[in-house]
């Protein structure tokens, strides 16, 4: 996080805001709600409070503006610059200007007003842009489902460094952006996809292309906006050129690079008993057409051709895969299976039925 130069801050904690006008692209009530929720992002983690006022000057004046709106920072039409805001202070200080020519929405289409206003309010309160790609104060727009939004730890640390901690009994914490070479990095799930490897972690995915040395970090929502964060299991069906992604008792199919229509579907369609509430990990063996699902200390085997679970399952993981413990994530590549348990990775040879290697979880990232 970065403070705005000169460390400007409001001298009071009880601030006021006013909405000067509205965009015709959203219902007034939705604009009000987006702005109210954006303010609560910051009031939830600091002693700050925001009271709405009408018909008088407020600390934070929020308005939709068009091109040159007499603040020496003209907007540039659709896309490009979405909004801007001014650091704490009298007059224009703290004000938020939103580019009227953007496609404002309350969901993943166009630009989500809540996300953008929450970012701009960070400026209104004295924060500058963060270079943490997962931070709300990162300058480039990225969509997160407002219902799943959690203020990242980088932003919490920044705003609390200015205004102090929240008055709540339990201090709020936020997600931390994963770093590929963090030795403590663990994964929610892993899958291959057309020769690449995708490592899922929270709302992020680390993407490793065999021909590129560096690892790319993206939000899952950048590619698949309708997918939730926290994907718990994933595998690639190479023959059908699709990947299946699991969370709780549902699963999605991504065909090629697009989410197939009609998903999510219940995992019970695959033959799991109702006692199974979630899948921890999965991999599919391209040579046998069998897919393995890991749940707690047991695993099921699914026949991709018959489209049904094989008989005689579940079986104990330890009896067939050895001492790999609970499986967080797994993937199959070039005849070997890679099991991830915390920060440990096991290389398993399914033909010899034995573990043939043990590495760190981050061994794929050329650290």
């Amino acid at each position, binding site marked *: 996080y970065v403070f705005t*130069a000169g460390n400007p801050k409001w001298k009071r904690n009880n601030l006021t805001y006013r909405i000067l006008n509205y965009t015709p692209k959203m219902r007034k009530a939705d604009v009000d709600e987006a702005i109210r929720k954006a303010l609560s992002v910051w009031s939830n983690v600091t002693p700050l409070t925001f009271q709405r006022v009408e018909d008088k000057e407020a600390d934070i004046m929020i308005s939709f503006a068009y091109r040159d709106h007499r603040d020496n*920072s003209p*907007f540039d039409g659709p*896309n*490009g*610059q*979405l*909004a*801007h*805001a001014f650091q704490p202070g009298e007059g224009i200080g703290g004000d938020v200007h939103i*580019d009227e020519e*953007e496609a404002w929405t309350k969901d993943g289409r166009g*630009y989500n007003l809540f996300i*953008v206003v929450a*970012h*701009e309010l960070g*400026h209104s309160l004295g924060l*500058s*842009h963060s*270079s943490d*790609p997962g931070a709300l104060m990162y*300058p*480039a*727009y990225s969509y997160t489902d407002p219902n799943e939004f959690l203020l990242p730890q980088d932003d919490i640390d920044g705003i609390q460094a200015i205004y102090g901690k929240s008055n709540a009994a339990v201090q709020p914490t936020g997600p931390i952006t994963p770093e590929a070479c963090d030795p403590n990095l663990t994964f929610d799930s892993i899958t291959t996809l057309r020769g690449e490897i995708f490592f899922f972690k929270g709302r992020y995915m680390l993407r490793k292309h065999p021909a590129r040395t*560096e690892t790319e970090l993206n939000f899952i929502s*950048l*590619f698949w906006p309708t997918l939730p964060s926290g994907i718990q299991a994933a595998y690639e069906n190479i023959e059908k050129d699709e990947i299946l992604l699991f969370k709780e008792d549902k699963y999605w199919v991504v065909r090629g*690079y697009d989410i197939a229509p009609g998903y999510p579907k219940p995992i019970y369609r695959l033959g799991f008993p109702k006692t199974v509430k979630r899948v921890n990990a999965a991999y599919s063996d391209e040579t046998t057409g069998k897919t393995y699902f890991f749940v707690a200390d047991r695993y099921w085997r699914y026949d991709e051709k018959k489209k049904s679970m094989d008989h005689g399952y579940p079986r104990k993981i330890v009896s067939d895969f050895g001492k790999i413990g609970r499986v967080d994530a797994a993937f199959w590549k070039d005849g070997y299976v890679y099991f991830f348990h915390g920060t440990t990775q096991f290389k398993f040879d399914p033909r010899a039925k034995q573990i043939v290697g043990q590495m760190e979880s981050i061994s794929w990232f050329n650290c």
Partner: protein
Amino acid sequence: FPVAPETEDEGKTPQLVESYLQNFYDLQRGSHPHLRSHGENRLVAKLKEMQSFFGLQVTGKPDADTLEMMKKPRCGVPDIGQ
């Protein structure tokens, strides 16, 4: 997935780069990026600053990753300076 910048955009690259650096990295307007001043070209220096900020490879050149970042919708507040 994601689609690489359109090649027909290349004619606009210098303008995109210069205005981005003017808007967000305090590149003085009217500077003469094509004249090599003492030491490094200011535009190259600003480009490196932007690449460093975004965790891109610091090449000082408007490579594909850098242009892709410059084309992303974003906040109008500068990343450095006022």
